[in-house]
């Protein structure tokens, strides 16, 4: 019976529902979103690719010519790559809406512009 009184009480209050996607709350500061590479800082050491627990990062070539392929569909969003990167080349973004119809468009490529 206690719950009925409660239900009536809450009926009069503002709803808690966030009407996503029409209104949205920004993720808190420090949210672990998609990692993004700053290729001007990347030295192509390949550590991120080897330390990634799920093999979501592929590095092609080494050094300045290195090309990074990030597979969002494999990413665990753990942030270990960003933590390990010696040069702060990896930043975690704030976005979380990665849903796609196709896995091929979930690959992000990064290459140093010359």
């Amino acid at each position, binding site marked *: 019976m206690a719950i009925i009184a409660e239900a009536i009480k809450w009926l009069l209050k503002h709803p808690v*529902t*966030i009407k996503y996607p029409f209104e949205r709350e920004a993720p808190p500061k420090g949210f672990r979103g998609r990692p993004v590479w700053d290729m001007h800082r990347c030295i192509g050491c390949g550590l991120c690719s080897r330390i990634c627990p799920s093999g979501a990062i592929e590095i092609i070539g080494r050094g300045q010519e290195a090309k990074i392929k990030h597979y969002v569909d494999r990413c*665990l969003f753990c942030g270990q790559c960003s933590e390990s990167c010696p040069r702060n080349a990896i930043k975690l973004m704030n976005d979380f*809406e990665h849903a796609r119809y196709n896995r091929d468009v979930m690959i992000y490529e990064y290459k140093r512009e010359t």
Partner: protein
Amino acid sequence: MSLLKWIRAKSPWILHFNTGGCNGCDIELLAAFTPRFDVERFGILLQGSPRHADILAVTGPVTLQVRERLIRIYEQMPEPKYVLAVGSCACSGAPFKDCYNVIGGVDKVLPVDAYVPGCPPKPEAIIDGIVKLIQKIEEGGTCEKRR
């Protein structure tokens, strides 16, 4: 025909199936049905039986044992049916893709209509995936059937 499409898009019912994941995506998917996120706004209901469902939301990497069952559940769903892969594991197998008892992502077994990566995806991200899937339903696109 367009009426049919409209009906489909306004009340897609979801069947949730965990194929061997870690529970993280399951609780987030469930959280999307609770008051804070409330996907029932879109006419979406969580269904217990595959016979009633339009969308199969799969969480977790597909393990060997569960593969046959997943296919069976999918086959029991009425046409047109859609598959939503929730979480990175369901998308690709993620950290478990080289485990001996894991086949990989859901798309190794079933045709997948939308992928929601994230480990786990926030309930908002799952809603985003569902909304995108609904858009696909509205457009009338069904995936080509492959086995």
